[in-house]
């Protein structure tokens, strides 16, 4: 077994322990810290899988800002979880059903490490990985590209990356799916506006904030 597989399994085992710990622990500060460590270990796991963008997001958002905001919330709510009554069977059934559906959805994905997976049958250029490719590897200047564009009006993309930048994740997110990302940004703006409308000035002025 290769070293990277052993590392992956160790990280995944650690992730499972951290998740169970974050659910089971009564002190909410401990729970927040455990979920933060969970995100950090998850980021390490993405790194060993060469998913740089996901690892970066997990570290910045999962381990960083989520922890800060959760601690800010704990200042308001208190730090010890109240003991709840025994298992709620409808909730457990719903959760198990949703989890089973999600796992069923992953059955169509290629197996982990499958050499016939699309990610492996469409290999990246070596230069693409090194990210040292000029935009026009044939040495075409911008003027040449303009001439090419004039001669071939249907071909808008004359470079190595079909007109996209070397980081294919960013290329997909803000170019190919730019419309989707625009409304994700709008959703974040909406969340901020809702907080301003609901919470701003609530503590200073008890007349305001009657909505919550």
């Amino acid at each position, binding site marked *: 077994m290769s070293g990277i597989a052993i590392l992956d399994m160790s990280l995944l085992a650690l992730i499972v322990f951290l998740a169970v710990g974050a659910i089971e622990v009564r002190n909410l500060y401990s729970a927040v810290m455990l979920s933060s460590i969970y995100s950090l270990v998850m980021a390490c796991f993405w790194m060993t899988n060469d998913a740089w963008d996901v690892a970066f997001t997990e570290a910045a958002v999962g381990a960083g800002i989520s922890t800060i905001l959760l601690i800010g919330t704990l200042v308001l709510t208190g730090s010890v979880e109240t003991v709840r009554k025994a298992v709620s069977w409808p909730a457990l059934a719903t959760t198990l059903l949703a989890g089973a559906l999600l796992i069923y959805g992953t059955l169509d994905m290629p197996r982990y490490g499958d050499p016939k997976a699309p990610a492996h049958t469409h290999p990246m250029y070596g230069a693409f990985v090194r990210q040292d490719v000029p935009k026009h590897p044939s040495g075409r200047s911008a003027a040449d590209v303009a001439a090419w564009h004039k001669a071939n009006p249907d071909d808008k993309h004359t470079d190595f990356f079909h007109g996209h930048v070397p980081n294919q994740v960013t290329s997909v997110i*803000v*170019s190919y799916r*730019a419309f989707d990302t625009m409304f994700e940004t709008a959703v974040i703006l909406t969340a901020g506006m809702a907080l301003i409308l609901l919470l701003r000035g609530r503590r200073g002025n008890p007349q305001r904030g009657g909505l919550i």
Partner: protein
Amino acid sequence: MTTNPIMRVIARVNMPLMVVFAVYVQVHGEIGPGGGFQAGVIFAAAFILYGMVFGGAEMRRVFPRWISDAGSALGVLIYAGTGVYSMLMGYPFLDHVAIWPSNPGGAEPWGMVSVEWGVGITVACVMMTIFNEITEGTDDPPPGADTEMVPALHQNKTELG
């Protein structure tokens, strides 16, 4: 807020580094890992760290609320404005080719940079808004409390640059 001098010194030294790293992630968004969302989150985390250590009122002094309110909307405006610009130039919505029609491969990164700045500004400002609103009024020092444990740093600000 905390009166622990170690926390105060470390926060004061770390915050500019975090801001610089956020800007680095932002401007390299289209060629490296990361992008507007990560950069905005790191930028906001720097100011939130400052707010947690020095108090929310101090954070709102260095980053006033009207800036974070306006920035939240400005980011979406930049993003949508990039799309509207390409529509005005006769291309489909958010087709970055409109920015430099004679060189589509060169236009793509510029469109993405513009869009990423929109995402980064909105995310940073909204994260700071969330922190401001959920912690407002919870970290005020008690009246008469001596909260200044590192007087030298405040009296002689040039000492740390």
